[in-house]
């Protein structure tokens, strides 16, 4: 009996290798990517406010305006081929590109564009503020955003702003044009088709949705009638792989073409590996600590300052985030109008201790930090925990999902929050409005900026930010932002640490993946495979 059993075992062992033999490269017209996509909660471009969702929208929808990815200051036409601005700077007239068709085959018209923008305001989801800041409300939007004929779109803003401000805002996800006829047919209870569009696509972009299984897989199909020409890839499959080790295994095994979330350490060991190509693309995202001013210790200026001397910027950059970040301490990322390069802070425990002593906290204090439980932020948080400890500050980490920590942060219930901030559109106002403006510090304020989230009352900076966005001269405007950043750098409750570099590893037979400066400027359209 034992013998027979052993014989069976041997047979099984011999057969087993045969099963997995089908390992092969992915098909030539299918792009397979591993990426964390569990942040996607909706596919409606009027609602998408997540990193992965924004990348999806960028590949499925066309926006009214785009910009040169190598030089963000150069605006380009998208669905709007060209535009003119009235003398008073309040009325924008867009000419819609002819010959574009939606995935459904319907033509793209000014009516679709107007309806899409109105829809953002009426649905009033998370990203709606990007348009609402121009004074659009559900009541007035039909009048202020309108199609005057099939190919002319008119947009009137409440006040005159820096002329590029609106245009950049229309280059964001909320500027996506959706297929009115298709979406309206799916309307339920006056939801403007929102319930349907959350899980379907109705765009004119190079790809259309074939299916989405949340936290598992996103599958796109080529749009053959795309106006810039059909993409080479018939399908694009984005598989959610949370495990970094697994992403790497799949990449080396040839089961995926591109790994999007490998850690700096993994990438360092893949350096020079045959068949793989490593790409490092500077991004506009910023890593920072936010110190809630409702906390009595953190609200002391000396403490705010001391904490800026208790982060090992260089050490982190050179080790756990090697190649993944550059040190950045002002709130505007490199490449933005008016961005400054000042980096006055470095790890200096002795000086930090002095500052703490001045604040009457020579023995340190205990404080918590809400930390998203994903790599690399969790590792960075642990290093910060260790350097804070050297000055006697007992930092307790409270890890949670990105959504959990963010919800707590938005409700101003944190002590310290560590996170990543991505500009919603490439205009300096995107970050200035967040970091340096807090018009109303009440708990029920209408505008809840990052400064508001940290209960930082700054009437002067707020006024300066408001003035800067209304300044119509670029050079003067840049000067204003430089002044705001310097004031901010000296005393803000934000420990700004790094600017992000996106790390992507591709198999060398894959070419043409476009990785822009922003999370919504990554495009699959031009990808080809040998």
């Amino acid at each position: 009996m034992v013998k027979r059993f052993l014989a069976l075992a041997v047979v099984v062992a011999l057969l087993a290798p045969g099963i997995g033999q089908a390992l092969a490269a992915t098909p030539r017209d299918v792009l397979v990517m591993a990426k964390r996509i569990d942040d996607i909660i909706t596919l409606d471009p009027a609602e998408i406010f997540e990193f992965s969702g924004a990348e999806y929208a960028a590949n499925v929808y066309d926006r009214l305006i785009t910009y040169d990815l190598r030089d963000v200051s150069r605006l380009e036409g998208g669905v709007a081929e060209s535009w003119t601005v009235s003398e008073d700077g309040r009325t924008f007239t867009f000419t819609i590109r002819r010959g574009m068709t939606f995935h459904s085959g319907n033509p793209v018209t000014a009516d679709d564009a107007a309806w899409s923008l109105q829809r953002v305001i009426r649905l009033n989801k998370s990203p709606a503020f990007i348009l609402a800041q121009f004074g659009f409300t559900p009541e007035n939007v039909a009048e202020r955003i309108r199609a005057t004929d099939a190919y002319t779109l008119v947009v009137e803003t409440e006040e005159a702003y820096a002329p590029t401000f609106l245009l950049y805002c229309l280059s964001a996800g909320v500027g996506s044009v959706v297929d009115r006829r298709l979406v309206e047919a799916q309307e339920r209870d006056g939801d403007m088709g929102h319930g349907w569009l959350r899980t379907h696509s109705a765009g004119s972009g190079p790809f259309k949705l074939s299916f989405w299984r949340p936290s598992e897989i996103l599958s796109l199909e080529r749009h053959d009638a795309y106006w810039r020409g059909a993409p080479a890839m018939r399908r694009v499959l984005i598989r959610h792989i949370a495990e970094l080790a697994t992403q790497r295994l799949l990449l080396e095994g040839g089961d995926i073409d591109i790994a999007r979330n490998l850690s700096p350490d993994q990438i360092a060991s893949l350096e020079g590996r045959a068949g793989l190509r490593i790409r490092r693309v500077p991004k506009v995202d910023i890593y920072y600590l936010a110190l809630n001013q409702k906390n009595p210790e953190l609200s002391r200026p000396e403490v705010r300052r001391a904490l800026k001397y208790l982060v090992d910027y260089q050490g982190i950059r050179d080790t756990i985030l090697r190649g993944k970040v550059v040190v950045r301490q002002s709130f505007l990322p490199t490449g933005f109008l008016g961005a400054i390069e000042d980096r006055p802070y470095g790890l200096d425990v002795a000086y930090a201790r002095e500052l703490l002593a001045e604040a009457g906290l020579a023995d340190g204090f205990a404080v918590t930090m809400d930390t998203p439980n994903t790599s690399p932020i969790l590792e960075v948080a642990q290093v910060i925990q260790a350097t804070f400890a050297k000055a006697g500050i007992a930092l307790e980490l409270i890890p949670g999902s990105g959504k959990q920590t963010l919800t707590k942060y938005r409700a101003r219930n944190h002590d310290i929050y560590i996170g990543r901030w991505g500009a919603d559109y490439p205009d300096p106002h995107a970050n200035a409005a967040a970091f340096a403006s807090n018009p109303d510090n009440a708990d029920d304020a209408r505008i809840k900026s990052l400064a508001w989230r940290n209960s930082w009352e700054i009437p002067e900076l707020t006024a300066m930010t408001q003035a800067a966005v209304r300044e119509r001269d670029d050079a003067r405007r840049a000067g204003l932002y430089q002044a705001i950043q310097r004031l901010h750098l000296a005393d803000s409750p934000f420990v700004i640490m790094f600017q992000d570099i996106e790390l992507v590893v591709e198999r060398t037979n894959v070419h043409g993946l476009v990785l822009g400066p922003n999370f919504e400027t990554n495009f699959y359209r031009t990808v080809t495979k040998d």
Partner: protein
Amino acid sequence: MAYFPPSGAAPRPGFLPGLPGWLNTALGLLASVALTFLGLLLVTFLIGRVVPIDPVLAAVGDRAPAEVYEQMRIALGLHLPLHEQFLAYVGKVLEGDFGRSVLTANPVLEDIRRVFPATLELATLSILLGVLIGVPMGVVAAVRHGRWPDHVIRVLGLVGYSVPVFWLGLMGLLLFYANLGWVAGPGRLDIYYEGLVEPVTGLILVDSLVAGEPEVFWNALGHLVLPASVLGYFSLAYISRMTRSLMLEQLSQEYIVTARAKGLSEARVVWRHALGNAMVPLVTVIALSYGSLLEGSVLTEIVFAWPGLGYYITNSLLNADMNAVLGGTIVVGAVFIGLNLLSDLLYRVLDPRAR
């Protein structure tokens, strides 16, 4: 990871005196299952109430104005006293309404229906491995009681109980996928096969054959082998152990001595007579360990990026999606109760003494 079966018999009172025996037993069983299920719901309900996450906020988002918030609070029934909330909750669950997942925006039941077949497929293959290898191992160990095959099998089994399944999975991937290339990688299919076969049953092995796509079938099997082996090892450990002790009991019985005395071959005595009799309790053991595989699948699915129920529950948990976590918990609990009932019934049907 219920390692040892609970010992000490549960009280099984008859339902009502005066009823015919079988009816009484059946009603008693039914009442006990219903009560257990109700208790399960009570526990999940209470967990849902102590959660620090505000369910209203989760539903309306944190930018909603106060009146929308209040409307949703009433719509969710959170203004009612606790016992009324519980009754409403039971009613909803019985209708199959576990609420909506925040993460996927789908009704939780719909999500579970989508992910459950993946777990079922994995657990079924694992239990097959566990039975096909574990039962012979247990028999061999019993026959060679106290000798080296017994010791080897025993240690193998104990290691199966002791190894962290997520760690074994990682090491298995490293060795068999990355280094040796014997098996396919994480996931249920090579990614570019995704969406090629229309889900009918949700079991890819079945669906691919129905659709006449043998290539997909083999691919799916290649992906199943490793996670099923890792998980199967756990059930193998349990099954071989139980088989061994059941066989030892049988082999010491008088009828075995008689059978041997009658000159029956040793193989016939062991595999036919002893195993045949041990089969009755063994079936219940197998049914129970099938349930524990559902649980073992939680960590295995994480490691293998296996989009099943365990993966769904943990992923929801990490994203504080309580409706999904509790819905998943209820489903797994219900399956457990069902399997317990099934093993109980099987025992009654198969075992002449219990009839």
